[in-house]
């Protein structure tokens, strides 16, 4: 189902962070949200996940306003992977992944066979089976990122919204995670990721939403949005567009826009 934002305005405290965002996000595609620090990316992704209440406008999932869904019902559809990989207690990996099933479980009931199946396929999809017996503190940064992704996938959401999932990962783990996210989108899931790296975005994203100071600069297919003019406008940088061996165009930042 399509995830749409219409005339979305959001404030954090008294400060207006997002102004009139309009976007239609397609399921089965990877949409990257890009923009300078403080441009409202995290706020947008949290609002799209239904975790922040907009001042004006609304987020709809297949026509139904998210705000009208019961929190558990919303949780079954919208998976959210926060930026900080916080785990407050030193729990086991298996227990951590099982948390993703919380919105599906009846009160006081144990894990059902469906729960176990979903946990199992999430563990499979993220390649963390060998880590299942470990504690969270015994994981490396890359392993922890995969385990936390498995936690979200265990909930079998229709949409996955990830806030800077590549932060603090080395290049190999970045590529690995992007590949997994692309595979999820190919399987029909809607994937929204906040990214900083233009090259990674060009590699992984089908669609791009470029933000600057809480306003959309460009929304659309990666090929048209990750081009000279929109990037100049959003980031104030000049890019050199180079082609990779698979024919994709990758924008590489080369310098700041010189004042005219």
């Amino acid at each position: 189902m399509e995830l749409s934002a219409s005339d979305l305005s959001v404030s954090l405290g008294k400060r207006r962070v997002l102004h009139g965002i309009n976007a239609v996000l397609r399921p089965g595609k990877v949409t990257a949200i890009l923009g300078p620090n403080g441009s409202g990316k995290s706020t947008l992704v949290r609002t799209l996940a239904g975790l922040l209440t907009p001042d004006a406008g609304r987020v709809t999932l297949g026509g139904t306003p998210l705000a009208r869904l019961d929190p558990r019902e919303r949780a079954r559809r919208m998976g959210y992977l926060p930026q900080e990989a916080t785990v407050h207690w030193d729990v086991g990996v298996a227990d951590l992944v099982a948390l993703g099933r919380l919105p599906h479980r009846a009160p006081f009931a144990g894990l059902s066979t469906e729960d176990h199946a979903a946990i199992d396929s999430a563990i499979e999809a993220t390649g963390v089976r060998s880590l299942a017996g470990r504690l969270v503190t015994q994981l490396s940064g890359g392993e922890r990122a995969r385990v936390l992704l498995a936690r979200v996938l265990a909930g079998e959401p229709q949409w996955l919204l990830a806030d800077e999932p590549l932060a603090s990962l080395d290049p190999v783990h970045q590529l690995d995670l992007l590949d997994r996210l692309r595979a999820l989108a190919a399987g029909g899931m809607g994937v929204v990721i906040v990214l900083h790296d233009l090259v990674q975005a060009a590699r992984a994203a089908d669609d791009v939403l470029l933000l600057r100071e809480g306003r959309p600069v460009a929304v659309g297919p990666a090929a048209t949005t990750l081009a000279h003019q929109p990037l100049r406008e959003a980031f104030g940088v000049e890019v050199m567009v180079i082609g990779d061996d698979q024919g994709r165009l990758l924008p590489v930042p080369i310098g700041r826009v010189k004042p005219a």
Partner: protein
Amino acid sequence: MSRLALNLGLALLVALLFAGSLMAGKFWVPFSAWFSHDPRWWIIAELRLPRAILGLAIGAALGLSGAVLQGFLRNPLADPAVVGVSSSAALGAVASIVLLGSSAPLVLFGCAMMAACGSMLLLATLAWRAESAVAFILAGSVLASLGGALTSFLISISPNPYATAEILDWIMGALTDRSYAEVQLAVPFIAIGCAVLFATGRALDALTLGEAAARSLGLRLERTQLLVVLGTGLAVGASVAVTGVVGFVGLIVPHLLRPLTGARPSALLLPSALGGAALLLAADSLVRLSPGASEIRLGVAMALLGTPFFFVLLLKLRRSTWN
């Protein structure tokens, strides 16, 4: 160790300590006397049984609320004293002695409960919709020191040395000479409070991932906060209202058990309730055996036991942050 085995083991320990609590004291009553026409049976039925029931219920309330608060605040140093419920209940009881001149169980209990629940409502209001646990802890600490200050003030204006002695005696925390009247008053509130606290298990698990992720899992944070506050107010308020302040159980017990249960907060709830009951029954039996005519106060004994434990805990925490 499996969870079931651990819980069964703890339940067995509680049962043994409960029986031990009926036997132990200045006057030993052997097991053989229980089911005969031995006149010592009266000691058990009228003096030690209500005391043991209270010890069991209060220990469970303190252990459970400690585990819930640590999970809710994601802080291993949290316990009921931190959120101010104990000192508020104590304030209510002292107010009853000083202002109403009454230490009848019903009046004292009513005042202490009202103060405990009132302060928890105030806490819920102060921390309402706050996005972080810090606001909750701050508001709790403010209430705790306010309760302490007002209690001191009431002691300073207490009408006669008699009342002062009674207050001090009460504040120190003890299960001495408690009767079925106290059992009837406190146990229903403790039971309801514990039931409410047990209902927070899932939410505490979700909070392991932080507040945003927990809400993305469908958690209503405000509801959870209300349950925590209400459950703590009822269970701990009723406990303090009949025994006075007995600290450290809520802090120590979840800590001792966490290595056995794993760190998942919901897995810690039942063991902490059982462990709290065991600790309080054991401590109350031991203080009765102290030499001399009177007993060591339970609250004093727990504090003596708890303080070194607290230091070790802090040192361990510091070491783990250094590494």
